[in-house]
């Protein structure tokens, strides 16, 4: 598709398909993420959001299709490889190293900085950005849920990724925590000049934060555009209200 | 042809007992996530009690078959009681703690072994012949006694399988073995089911011991050898898988009877272990095991 010109795209996905058993979870997916962009991936349950997310991050292998990241073809490359290329992700469940301290959690994310001093600086800086400076010595598993989410983001950004993929980062947060988290995510993007792709169910947050929104339904792209465009798109509204749970 | 038939018959006969023993072990692992080292001791105890009781009742004038049946019942009951006690005292505290349960069962093995030796002594015991005579079965010779016992073992296995497929408890046990989290979410009472699973598993070991008693010489250490083979069986068939245990049992039994016939036992054992190691690399969950962590 012409709107996915891959010359300046950070991430470019073409013809992505993934089959599970007999079910086509994702089919003919074309999408892209540019530099310095926040893209939201939404859709009703079972639309294929998690699958797409896992395919892009290297957690799953596509059945067919092509993924290009930062100019390199990375279809089928592993999670670790993608991370070394500059794509970081968070996890929705089991998102932390529970028994380790906050400091050690971020340390694991920052281990690509082999220079000790640089690494330490990076850890402190990351902790400060997400509001965890006061908690560095605490055990990650003991943190309140909101801070745990922030920590999982911290682990992902510790290595200064080019593309940050967030898997439902706002689940389980109350209104204040959501506002806080959105502020942090926005400032992260601005300061680190990275792009962000995130899967979310919280519609208001998505509309507020994203430059662009992609709507998935039944494994295909239903609509794409700015939050305003998507908000008034009739088929999107139907997909959410009309599809039985 | 005769050799083949004989080997087949031997395999069936050896395998039938292995099935009961291995089924017990795999059930306990499947439900409690504990590898019970002392499974072999329950087996030995049952065999020893069967031998002692059969002889005693026979000496009172009862016909051998009656003595044997009473002894059978007594032995299984005794082992069930013992397993209940060990569960409450030892295993209950380690449900879900694989390493802890493992070490506890290790202590239990040594303790029970010592006790068995003290009570029964190391001298081999036998059970007098219950039924006399040989038969030709599928072209191979087998004693009537072995055949009857083999059929009994297979019947019990079938019965167990039906129980697990049809009954509520059976369903709960299988659910626990397959996906513990989901089972718990469905409201299954973990502790109660774990206890039942343990009792049934140990009961199977006891039954296996009672059935093997008339067929071999009984020593307190016999459980250990069976346990080793049962580990192999359960590994091949898949931890927690019941059909796997059945297939694995006959597979191991066939290697033993064929390998033991054509080569010596130790070469057969090395080859077997080697094959298993390779199988595990390709398919770590065994033939029919579940791919959970």
């Amino acid at each position: 598709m012409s709107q996915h010109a891959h010359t300046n795209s950070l991430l470019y996905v073409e013809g992505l398909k993934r089959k599970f058993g007999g079910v086509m979870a994702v089919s003919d997916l074309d999408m892209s993420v540019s530099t310095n962009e926040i893209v939201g991936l939404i859709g009703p349950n079972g639309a294929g959001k998690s699958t797409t997310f896992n395919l892009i991050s290297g957690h799953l292998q596509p059945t067919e299709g092509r993924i290009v990241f930062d100019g390199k073809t990375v279809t089928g490359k592993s999670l670790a490889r993608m991370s070394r290329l500059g794509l970081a992700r968070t996890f929705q469940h089991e998102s932390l190293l529970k028994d380790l301290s906050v400091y050690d959690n971020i340390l694991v994310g920052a281990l690509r900085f082999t220079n000790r001093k640089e690494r330490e600086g990076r850890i402190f800086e990351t902790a400060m950005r997400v509001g965890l400076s006061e908690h560095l010595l605490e055990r990650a598993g003991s943190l309140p849920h909101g801070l745990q989410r922030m920590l999982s983001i911290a682990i992902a950004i510790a290595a200064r990724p080019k593309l940050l993929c967030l898997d439902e980062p706002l689940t389980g947060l109350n209104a204040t925590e959501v506002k806080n988290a959105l502020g942090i995510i926005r400032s992260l993007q601005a300061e680190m000049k990275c792009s962000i792709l995130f899967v979310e169910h919280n519609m208001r947050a998505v509309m507020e934060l994203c430059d662009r929104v992609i709507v998935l339904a039944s494994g295909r792209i239903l609509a794409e555009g700015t939050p305003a465009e998507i908000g008034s798109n009739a088929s999107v509204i139907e997909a959410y209200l009309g599809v039985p749970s | 042809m005769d050799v083949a038939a004989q080997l087949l018959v031997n395999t069936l006969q050896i395998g039938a007992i292995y099935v009961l023993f291995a089924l017990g072990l795999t059930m306990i692992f499947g439900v409690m996530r504990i590898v019970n080292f002392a499974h072999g001791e329950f087996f030995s105890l049952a065999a020893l009690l069967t031998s002692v009781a059969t002889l005693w009742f026979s000496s009172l004038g009862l016909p051998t078959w009656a003595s044997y049946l009473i002894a059978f019942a007594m032995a299984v009951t005794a082992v069930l009681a013992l397993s209940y006690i060990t569960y409450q005292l030892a295993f209950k505290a380690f449900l879900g703690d694989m390493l802890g349960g493992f070490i506890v069962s290790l202590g239990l093995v040594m303790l029970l072994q010592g006790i068995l030796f003290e009570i029964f002594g190391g001298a081999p015991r036998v059970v007098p012949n219950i039924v006399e005579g040989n038969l030709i079965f599928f072209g191979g010779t087998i004693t009537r006694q072995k055949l009857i016992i083999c059929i009994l073992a297979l019947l019990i296995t079938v019965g167990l399988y039906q129980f697990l497929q049809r009954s509520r408890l059976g369903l709960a046990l299988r659910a626990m073995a397959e996906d513990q989290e989901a089972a718990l979410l469905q409201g299954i009472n973990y502790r109660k089911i774990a206890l039942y699973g343990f009792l049934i598993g140990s009961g199977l070991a006891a039954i296996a011991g009672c059935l093997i008693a008339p067929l071999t010489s009984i020593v307190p250490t016999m459980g250990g050898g069976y346990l080793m083979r049962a580990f192999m069986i359960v590994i091949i068939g898949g931890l927690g898988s019941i059909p796997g245990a059945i297939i694995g049992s006959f597979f191991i039994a066939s290697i033993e009877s064929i390998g033991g016939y054509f080569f010596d036992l130790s070469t057969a054992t090395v080859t077997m272990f080697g094959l298993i190691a390779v199988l595990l690399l390709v398919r770590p969950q065994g033939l029919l095991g579940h791919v959970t962590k």
Partner: protein
Amino acid sequence: MSQSNFNRILLLGTLIAIGYSFFAGEAYSTQLLIWCSANVLLATSMRFMMLVGEFNMATVMFYGIGAYVSGYLTTRYSAPFATTLLAAGSIACVIGIAFGYVSLRIKGAYFMIISFAFAEVARLLATQISWLGGNSGIVGIFPPAWIEAWFPAVTIGLVVVLCTILKLVEDSSSGKVFAAIRNNDAIVQAAGISVLNMKVVCLALSAFVTGVGGALYAYSNNVISPADFTFMASVMALAAVKLGGENDFRGPILGAVLLTLIGQYVLRFGALDQLFYGGAILVAMLALPGGLMGVLQRWRVLLPVSQPGIRASGIKRAVKP
């Protein structure tokens, strides 16, 4: 008492043990110390693998490999002492790397089973290979004359060195990665670190240390055979870790010493020794949740560690413990 005082006591105890064995010569008590240190090594090595969350039942296999390498080199080629130790560790390490790459793709109970199967295959093979002595093994493995008089002290000293190496790695950032893998290996992968590579590194190091330990065993015992390296040795190492406390580096040390002492004590019961040994293990498991270290901490004999082990100059200054 505080953590540092406890550690000082442990260190003192170790130095006394070395000093004692230096002077006491061939006494039974020296033998006891050697057995203790051998078990400490196995238990510590076993726990090292547990840092990445795996129970390595093949530990005893590397022990055996080390023993056989040094035994063979000493008896056939009269190789120098230090060389055989190094060879034992290195060959065990190389085999560990090969074994690790192949089997560490598999986790948890299944890795435990595979490692058990491999160890048994290795042992059974050793019984069949004639130039390794088959069932009878290798005899006449003696340390060189210049060291023989002080050999117990050397053994214990080397065990201390080897365990220290493992401790240093545990405290390094690699150790943090191991702990991270144990907690959640998906996150480690997502951070760009190859979990398989790290696990293999862990196994290789553990194999090296265990291999050298095996060589020491060969020299101490003078005779080795496949029967010395059954899976029971791995199981006993696991028991030592569990009884001493799996969450602390000092746990396997305490557990191994405890088990060795109990093992020797129950011999006075003659034929009932196994019975009492098993009973002791049972009682210990039930009475000591969290192992000895856990109990010591619960009874306030030992103050808890105040921070989850952070090592960063910035933090130590900023936050008082």
